[in-house]
């Protein structure tokens, strides 16, 4: 869908002027404008770094519909009872204090010729550089029987907040000996270890409160992130509780009935008490509306995360198709800083340094049993390419696992401070 250009007549004059203006403004009175859509790990970080590092030389507007942001990372720990919902909640006050103009509204369209973003609440915002960090949406029809209207009966809980609360409430209301089912997503998707950390946290809760309950996973993937570590942990902590049906046994052929509460795998129908459907994913809708997607994702240049469709648009995080980095909050935060450095350089002439990226994902398997996987990345002409990496080992000592978990707590405090300037 392309928005009608006439929607923008009200700001057309200003937009036209900005179109003609060079990036480095000789006139000195109009500040260059950056608009960021999406206030998560990519968008909040980019907005904060550009505002902070440009010291007022760039006008930064963040468009984010929610006033309270709930992190997806650590939301599984909430399901397991290790966190409360408030522990995941963050406000945008720190960003505003950093000089970011935070607009709580939905971006509903991008006019790339006029360089404006249309808002659901009316009006539009002009930009010189636009940063899209909209996260994910779900591919329609990915799990037969499920669509967004079924998300109350069968939550995805893959955007944190009320969905996560709903899934926890359903888990806690499960009858003794009931079945918790998960339909796991195909690659690529947000947070590769996420579904399996979730299974671990659900198992942790059930072991203490509903020990005869079962967990059934329909999985279209042959393997998954940190598989050896998770399977070792499941055998050690939750023996006999978890059954994963992979593609060899029809795990890729799953459908649901949200009214009858059944999951059908390869033709076999099973009644379930809770069904967590995590469908196939695609870039958040605004990326598609802006016309920067190719298929499900938005291809970008690795050096500065600029869209391959438009040099004045950058795409960060889960929505981008960048190469080797996993879709994670850590990755988005890392990409945001590379992007912020490049955008600031383009708009103010500040020094631009070579792109460098890194990612680490921690997962909790049981109390004090933390594992992690990480890698460094560089920009090549083709993509963001992996340089080197590490992963926790099976058979590690309890001390190492506990230190890894405690490190993840430190990381959570670190990245949220880095995103929101708390």
């Amino acid at each position: 869908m392309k928005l009608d250009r006439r929607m923008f007549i009200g700001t057309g004059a200003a937009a036209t002027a900005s179109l003609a203006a060079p990036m480095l403004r000789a006139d000195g009175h109009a500040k260059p404008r950056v608009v960021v859509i999406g206030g998560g790990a990519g968008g909040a970080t980019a907005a904060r770094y550009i505002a902070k590092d440009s010291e007022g030389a760039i006008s930064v507007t963040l468009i984010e519909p929610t006033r309270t942001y709930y992190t997806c990372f650590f939301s599984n720990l909430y399901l397991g009872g290790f966190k409360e919902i408030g522990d995941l909640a963050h406000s945008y006050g720190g960003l505003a204090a950093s000089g970011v103009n935070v607009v709580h509204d939905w971006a509903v369209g991008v006019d790339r010729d006029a360089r404006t973003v249309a808002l659901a609440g009316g009006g539009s915002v002009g930009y010189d550089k636009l940063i899209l960090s909209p996260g994910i949406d779900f591919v329609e029809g990915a799990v037969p029987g499920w669509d967004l209207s079924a998300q109350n009966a069968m939550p995805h809980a893959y955007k944190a907040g009320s969905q996560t609360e709903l899934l926890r409430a359903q888990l806690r209301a499960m009858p003794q000996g009931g079945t918790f089912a998960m339909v796991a997503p195909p690659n690529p998707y947000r947070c590769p270890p996420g579904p399996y950390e979730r299974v671990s946290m659900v198992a942790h809760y059930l072991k203490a409160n509903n020990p005869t309950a079962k967990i059934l996973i329909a999985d279209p993937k042959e393997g998954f992130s940190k598989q050896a570590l998770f399977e070792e942990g499941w055998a050690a902590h939750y023996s006999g509780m978890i059954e994963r049906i992979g593609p060899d046994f029809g795990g890729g052929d799953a459908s649901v009935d949200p009214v009858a509460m059944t999951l059908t795998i390869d033709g076999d129908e099973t009644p379930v008490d809770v069904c967590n459907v995590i469908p196939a994913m695609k870039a958040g809708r605004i990326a598609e509306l802006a016309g920067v997607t190719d298929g499900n994702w938005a291809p970008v240049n690795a050096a500065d995360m600029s869209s391959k469709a438009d040099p004045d648009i950058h795409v960060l995080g889960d929505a981008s198709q960048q190469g080797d980095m996993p879709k994670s909050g850590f990755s988005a935060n890392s990409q945001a800083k590379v992007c912020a450095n490049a955008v600031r350089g383009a708009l103010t002439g500040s020094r631009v340094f070579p792109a460098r990226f890194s990612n680490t994902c921690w997962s909790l398997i049981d109390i004090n049993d933390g594992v992690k996987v990480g890698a460094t990345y560089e920009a090549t002409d083709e993509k963001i390419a992996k340089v080197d990496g590490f992963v926790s080992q099976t058979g590690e000592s309890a001390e190492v696992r506990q230190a890894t978990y405690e490190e993840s707590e430190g990381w959570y405090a670190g990245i949220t401070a880095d995103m929101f300037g708390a």
Partner: protein
Amino acid sequence: MRAPRAALICALPLLATVAGAELGGDAKAGEQVFRRCIACHQVGPDARHRTGPQLNDILGAPAASQGDYRYSPAMAKAGAEELIWTAEALNRFLASPRAYMPGTKMGFRGLAAPEDRADVIAYLASFSEGTAAPQAAGFALSPEVLALDGDAEYGAYLAAECTTCHQADGDNDGIPAIINMQQEAFVTAMHAYKQKHRANPAMQLIASRLGDEEIAALAAHFTTLGN
């Protein structure tokens, strides 16, 4: 004011020894200062744990690394976070133990005079030479690398990779603070990770692709933050 760096190509404990001397300390004078410590600490041949742990080989040792001594949870945590007793770390600890490490069992209020701290560190260093801490065995840094003058603006960009985990305001919720570190301690720590003499795989990975200039740039940035 930094003393000239001479003969720093050496194993870390020896480096730390020289660094102790670099604080301007006099080991002989330090023996006098150490009398204020002997109610709780022993050092030298036959030294044993008393109220406090024995202090042989303390320079360059990871915090809380003597398995047969019961450390405070705060000190054990510092050990888990890989605090190394460099001369600089000891200098800061000894200035005010409970300010540097809230929760330490060490009841001593601290040595206010920088000369006293430098002297006692030089004295302790004289019992540390030649016995490498396990993580630090064979670790070497040239004086040129330690003396590199970093590009702080580049460091500010590179530091964004650190602040995903290490909080820029110095808070510590499970990952240690890295602001307010002395340049030498920072550079030494990063090279120790790069050369895999410190254990954390995430830090080894991050450090592995930082060149000497980049480590110096980061040190310049974090030193600026600290000041």
